[in-house]
Structures are given as C-alpha cells and as structure tokens.
C-alpha cells in the first residue's frame, strides 16, 4: 500500500480509484462501441463505415462526443423541466451504478457484495424510470408512447431475465459476482453448459432489456420517431446514449460472469493450457501487426502515422504485459474484456441480421414463450439438483 491512509478510509481506497477509472474511461468505451457498431454494420452491409475522422474513423467517437456536447440543449416549452432534466440522469446513474459490482477481474472490481447479481438486476430495473420519466416529461405524444412501450417491454422481459438468472444462480448457489466466477472455477465448467436454456433466454431477454434490435420497439423510428428520447438533444441525449451502451456492457458482463466463466481463461483447470496466460501479449502483438499492415495500406500520411502509432502503442502494451506482475494483474481483465467484447459483437450482429418484431409479437414472445420456458428451466434445474443432491 503506497499511501498511508487513516484506517477508516483504508478499505475505500482502491474502490475509489476504480470508480474514478470507470467513470472516466467508460464514456470513451461507449463511444468506441458505437464506432464498432457502425463498423460492423458497414461490414455486414458491405461498406466501409466511418472512415473520415482519424484512421479508419478511429476518432469518430470523439468527434461525436464533441458534437453532442456543443449542440444546443433544447427543452420543449411544455416540458416538465426538472423531470426532463432528471430522467436521463436516472438512466445513466442506474447504468453506472451497476458497474460497481461487476467483476472485471479477480482484482479489478469496485466491490463484491453478497447480493451482487440481485443488486445489478435491482439497479438496472431503476433505469426504466429514466425512460418513463423522460418520455412523460417531454409532454409530447411520441415520447410518451415510446416510454410506455418501453416500460411495458422492460417490465415484461425483466421477468424472463430474472428467471434465467435464477437458473444460473441455482447452479452457482451464490449471489456474489466473484463467488459465481469462483463457482465456475470449482466446477471446471462454464455454466452455459449447465444452463444452456437459461443462457439462451437471458440473451433474448437482454436484447429486449437493452432496447436492442430486434426488440427496439421503444425507439422504432418508423413508428414513433425516436421513442422516449425524441425531444432530447445535445448533452441530455448523449446521457441516454451513454446509458444505453452502458446497459449493453452491463448485460454482457452479467452474461459473461454467469454463463461464460467471467474473468477466467478458457479451461482454467487444465494445466496443459497454461500457456493461454500469454494470450494478452500475443493478442497485442497481433494487433500491432495488423495496425502496421493497415498503416501500409493507408494512402494519406496522417492516417498512416495514426495507424503506425496505434501499432506502437500495442507493442508497448505487449511489452508491459510481459512483466509477470502486470500479466497476472491484467489476466482476468483481458479475458473478461474479450468475452464482453465478443458479446457486444454478438449484439451488433443480431441487430443487423434480424428484422424488428411487431409490438404484439414482442409481448407474445415474452409472455408466452420466454417466461414459461424460463420457469420450466428453473423447475427442471431444481429437480435435477435435488436428485443429484440426494
């Protein structure tokens, strides 16, 4: 411990640091998720996506952020001002608070409470309020409709989501996020193999929970303009945006934690695969290589330099990771981020593959299929566990 803090504050030191890191870094990450989304979309649609700002549009998020922040902040005349102001804050706060119990790695986590998973579900359910209040306070038809749709959708799918989580929890038999990961370590198995149905339900419900396509009814632009945030612009809009992408990260993180082994590397119990420890270094090197190759293909000098610089940064990171202490520290974080990133990729993939459902179909799926299935899953799990236990 480098700093000598009063004993009273000792336990709060590292969490504070982590909180600061997340708050500072996350908006940037969210921006890059947007970029990723646009890039993947472009790829799926066989085009290039943002290419102008920075090499391969790598600076696009920053430009977007600047744009959003300097835009005029419009509050509709008949809006309920302070609710209008409060609503996005609720959303984004709820999203960010969820991070406090996500186990990014065995070392990098803000806190580990004994009700971790429940806490996340609880907090993320608060996010709905932001949407409803935002829609209502705009005092306009489309936002209100969007908000009501959204609330109904979220509340409906939260049930299925909760039941899916319960399926996982029964296997893990703890609510603590770290505990869940450790349970998978002990079991030597990702829980997705124990609970494939739960995982499937979770993924579907999570898509709906985050208002992602094909369940993006609340903001179906062809029907109700932009849904609950139609009247929002500028900074407030960016808060909603931030919240949405944070939510994506959060649900992905939960999925990863509960079903895909969290920060564990693949097959953590197989000694033979210990070399996977070095994957971060290799990954960085590969990334650097790719960057250099890209730099070679770029035509304009600034972009060439940019790509090359990126390659160098990757190389430096690879070097940093080569230090055993850092490698150990970074190990979990790396795997976790990788898995989350893949999840997010999946989200994006789904978005551009499936058409949007109709609202009644959406409700139908939720109530008629997902929830019964989830309940059945819980029951079957329970029966199996009892049988195995006795």
């Amino acid at each position, binding site marked *: 411990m480098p700093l000598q803090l009063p004993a009273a504050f000792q336990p709060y030191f590292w969490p504070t640091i982590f909180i600061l890191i997340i708050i500072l870094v996350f908006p940037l990450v969210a921006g890059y998720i947007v970029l990723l989304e646009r890039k993947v979309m472009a790829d799926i649609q066989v085009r290039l996506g943002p290419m102008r700002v920075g090499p391969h549009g790598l600076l696009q998020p920053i430009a977007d952020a600047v744009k959003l922040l300097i835009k005029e902040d419009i509050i509709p005349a008949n809006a*309920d001002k302070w609710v209008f102001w409060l609503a996005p804050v609720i959303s984004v706060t709820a999203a960010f608070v969820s991070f406090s119990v996500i186990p990014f790695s065995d070392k990098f986590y803000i806190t580990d409470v004994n*009700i971790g998973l429940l806490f996340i*579900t609880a907090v993320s*359910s608060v996010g709905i309020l932001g949407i409803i209040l935002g829609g*209502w306070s705009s005092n306009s038809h489309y936002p209100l409709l969007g908000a009501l749709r959204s609330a109904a959708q979220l509340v409906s799918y939260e049930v299925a989501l909760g039941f899916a989580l319960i399926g996982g929890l029964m296997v893990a038999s703890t609510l*603590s996020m770290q505990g869940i990961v450790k349970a998978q370590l002990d079991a030597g198995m990702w829980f997705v193999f124990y609970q494939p149905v739960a995982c499937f339900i979770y993924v579907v419900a999570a898509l709906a929970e985050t208002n992602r396509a094909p369940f993006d009814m609340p903001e179906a632009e062809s029907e109700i303009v932009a849904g609950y945030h139609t009247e929002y612009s500028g900074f407030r809009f960016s808060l909603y945006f931030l919240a949405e992408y944070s939510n994506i990260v959060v649900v992905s993180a939960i999925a990863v934690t509960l079903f895909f082994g969290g920060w564990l590397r693949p097959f953590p119990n197989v000694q033979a695969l210990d070399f996977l420890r070095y994957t971060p270094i290799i990954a960085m090197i590969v990334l650097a290589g790719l960057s250099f190759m890209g730099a070679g293909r770029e035509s304009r000098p600034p972009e060439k330099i940019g790509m090359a610089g990126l390659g160098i940064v990757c190389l430096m990171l690879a070097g940093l990771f080569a230090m055993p202490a850092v490698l150990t520290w970074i190990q979990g974080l790396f795997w976790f981020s990788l898995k989350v990133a893949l999840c997010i990729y999946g989200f994006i993939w789904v978005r551009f593959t499936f058409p949007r459902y109709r609202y009644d179909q959406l409700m139908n799926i939720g109530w008629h299929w997902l929830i019964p299935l989830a309940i059945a899953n819980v029951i079957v799990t329970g029966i199996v566990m009892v049988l195995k236990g006795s």
Partner: protein
Amino acid sequence: MNVLPGFFFYLLSAIILGGAILTITRRNAVHSAIWLIVTLLGVAGIYLNQHAEFLAAVQVLVYIGGIMVLFLFVIMLVNLDEAAKQRQFNHQWTIAVGCALALMAELAYFIVKGRESFRFGDTGTGTLNPDAAVIEFLKSCRDIPGLGPGGFLQPNTELIACALYRDYLLPFEIASVLLLVAIVGAVVMAKKEI
C-alpha cells in the same frame, strides 16, 4: 468508527421524511411518484445500514423497479394533467391533523418515558431463529467462511433463504398464490375484454 452509520442514519432519515412529505404534498402525481422513489431509495439505504442487504436489493427491485414503474405507467395512462390543476386535498384536514397529533402525542410519550419504554424482546433463540442445524447448513454452503460480524444476520441472503424456505415455507407458498391472484386480478380489472 461508529460515526458513519450514525451519519447515514440521519441523512437517510432526512431523505425519507423529506421525500415522504413531498410525496403527499405534490400537486402533480408524477412528482409525487418521484419523491416516493426517493423515499423508497432512502428506505433501501436504511436497510443497508441495518445489514439487510438482501432486503435492500429487493426493495429497489420490487418497489422501484416494479411497483413504481407500474404507478408511473398508470399515472400516464390515466393522464392526470387535468387533475393536477384541481383542488388536491379533501376536507378531512381535521381528521388528518387529529391523527397526526395523536401519533405525535404518542411519540412525545415515548420520549418522556425514555429508554425504559423501549424494552424489546430478548435476543437469542426464538423457535424460528437459526439454530445449530441452520448454522451447520450455512457453513456447508460454498464460500461462507463462517458467520459474519453482524451476529446472526450474516450471511444475509442465505439466512433469509433459510427463513423463507424453511421456517416460513407456508407463508411463502401462500404468497405465491397471493401473487397469482394479484396477477389474475390485475388482468381481469385492466383488460377491456377477457
């Protein structure tokens, strides 16, 4: 070390009571709901302060994420803009003041009577307290090094599970029927044609 819980208690109390007063005095039902949410969050905080983590999470999940969303939903469905412009209070002020005074008098009585008026039950083993079997069971659970610092109240979730699924299994089952009835009832009531 004991400063912090105390501080939080007073802070949360202020939030709860302030929120509650605002809840019942706001003209606009949505604002009332928002203040109620604040109050409920404060109550959740109180639970945390009392080492009832599970309850705090349930409070947030069910109350704020469930019930209050429902409230807001209904407020929006029935569109109360007109109602907000009307008189907000009925003519039962006298009764209300009477009630308040009675309760305040009771409070004052407590304060005057002082500490001896707060004789609670004896701690220890009621029939439904965790007995040795439960503790053993808890220890057999994964990742529980022993009973935590809060006496019998930790690990919170597991203990509540014990209470719910063992001591209060019956009410738990009744509660499930209760919720079924509530679901059916809400559907019957709210749907135009069933």
